[in-house]
């Protein structure tokens, strides 16, 4: 039975390691900095995680299928630019417009991926170029600060309800919607099936291409929402606003225990992963690590987590 126990250990490792890591990290930072465990600080931590979590939630749907979306940071930046440019004229309509553009962009990369049969990392890399370029052209390569009047439209992001920041509520709503999509709908079950074994899913009549396009639409749509929230929090829109968020987002998904080979994962795992990333970031800031240099750690964490979670039986040849 040793092989069975080995497999069990590996499985339970992936199941519980993320949660254990999170608890350990929070305790560790709490020991060094007791004020970290105060409710107000923890609320701040949750607010800071919200944008990352929304971005990571979107890309979770794609990773569950075994694909990847490298355009989320450009989409979020573009959404922030759209909000900053149109909020004065369209009011709340600007948020809808930004998310609608996200949906269209997701549809485009999804179709490029399934119809032209372009590998997802290259299709979304190309899409990220198109989106980044659009953001640069629209914003005339500047950062746009929201005016005093425009900020009135942002209270649903920046305000609080009974002391609870609205950002956390937005994050919670996203969690609920994404969780229902993933566990209670046909789309969620088909995604898991495609990720677990695409030929089998195809053979049992799942419309694989359609599910994939849905996943890319969700990914870009949530990325646009993240951009909208980010624009509200920072009171500005810029073509590079979310440029540094691609790596932490993907790292959050993978650190949570969702395998990049697809099939295994959940939104809860992504939530834990996003919290881990935020705690690590706060810990590093506390230790005085430069925010750009933090990418060294995130890069290493990403590779380590991929190496642990990946299902090698699915890829006989690793390319």
């Amino acid at each position: 039975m040793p092989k069975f126990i080995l497999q069990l250990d590996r499985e339970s490792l992936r199941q519980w390691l993320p949660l254990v890591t999170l608890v350990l990290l929070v305790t560790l930072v709490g020991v060094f900095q007791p004020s970290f465990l105060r409710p107000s600080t923890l609320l701040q931590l949750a607010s800071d995680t919200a944008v990352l979590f929304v971005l990571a939630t979107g890309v979770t749907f794609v990773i569950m299928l075994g694909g990847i979306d490298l355009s989320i940071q450009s989409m979020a930046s573009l959404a922030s630019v759209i909000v900053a440019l149109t909020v004065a004229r369209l009011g709340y309509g600007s948020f809808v417009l930004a998310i609608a553009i996200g949906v269209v962009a997701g549809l485009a990369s999804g179709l490029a991926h399934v119809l032209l049969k372009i590998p997802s990392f290259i299709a979304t890399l190309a899409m990220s170029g198109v989106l980044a370029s659009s953001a640069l052209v629209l914003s005339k390569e500047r950062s746009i600060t929201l005016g005093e009047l425009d900020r009135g439209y942002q209270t649903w992001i920046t305000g609080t309800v009974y002391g609870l920041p609205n950002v956390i509520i937005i994050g919670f709503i996203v969690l609920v919607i994404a969780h229902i999509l993933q566990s209670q709908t046909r789309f969620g079950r088909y995604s898991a099936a495609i990720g677990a074994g695409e030929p089998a899913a195809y053979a049992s009549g799942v419309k694989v291409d359609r599910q994939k396009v849905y996943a890319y639409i969700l990914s870009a749509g949530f990325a646009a929402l993240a951009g909208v929230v980010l624009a509200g929090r920072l009171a500005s829109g810029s073509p590079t606003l979310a440029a540094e968020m691609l790596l932490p987002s993907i790292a959050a998904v993978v650190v949570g225990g969702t395998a990049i080979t697809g099939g295994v994962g959940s939104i809860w795992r992504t939530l834990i992963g996003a919290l881990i990333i935020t705690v690590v970031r706060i810990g590093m800031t506390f230790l005085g690590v430069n925010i750009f240099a933090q990418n060294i750690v995130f890069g290493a964490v990403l590779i380590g987590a991929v190496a642990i979670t990946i299902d090698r039986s699915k890829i006989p040849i690793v390319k």
Partner: protein
Amino acid sequence: MAKTLDSDLAAPDVAGQPTAKVRRWRTASWAPVVVLVLLCAIISVINPNFMSFGNAQRIAQAAMIPLVLGIGATFIILMGSIDLSVEGGLTLAAVILSLLTLNGANGNDFGILAVLAVLIVGASVGFINGMIHVYFKVPSFMATLGTWFMGVGLANALLGGMAVRINDPWIRGLAIERFLGFPWGAWLALVCLAGAFGIQNYTRLGRYIYALGGGEELAVLSGISVVRVRIAAFTLAGVFYAIGGILAAAQLGLGNAQIGNGRLFTTVTAVVVGGTALSGGQGSVLQTLVGVLIVVVLSNGMVLMGVPPSVQIGAQGLMIIAAVALSIDRKLMRIVK
């Protein structure tokens, strides 16, 4: 047994491969050349200044870095893998070069030793890519996505957000001094191309890279050490990114952590537009030269026509999609992820 299998498979492979491949790919490898010629013709009709010697110099100046980077990436893509760490390797190389050579921030002046050190840094970045990819069995796009950000992060940590001026006349000279009208850097890029062409066609590594891209199972059965070939290819690519970093530092006259921004994009576009297939096994560094010229001529033409530079990334994105869609051999891949 293993030995006879090896020689049996290897002999017809080496002898039979070129004729079959050349015949099959003649049209596909000439298509980019046709595109390039058409592009040049269209732009020179719109703006006759395109055909001047001064503009040729500008194109050479703009093409030298993408060419060197594209050569490195070609070897990886020929294996059917991808390298997203172009910007990481280049930025780290440029920043370390700016810190080791005669510069405005510290007292170092190591001259040629600095260049050597940078080449070793590039090779190490590639070597690490290869090791992670092969020994942890992490797909190359994930492994190199990690090292991309690690490289840029390390460059940032080294500089702390500053930019370091390079005062070494030899390094500045690569971009400023000219030979027969073209900057030395462009000649250096051509030397790199010749070297890469030699490696690709006349060494075992080159043939093995093609073999891995053409079909890894077969390559393993014919006794090729996949581990060694993959690590060697990534290391080689890392050296080319470091050379790209030296040229970029020379062109800007400084090293900063943003020096690599956008270069991954141009590199992948150039390789793919040149006709090298992402599925591996088909392509050449010479096709990358054509791809680089297409990308550079197009952006040069856009500048001549007054299109803002920020549109170019978007145009390149669309070119990637078009080129990959046209060149992918779909019969080989039933599942596309």
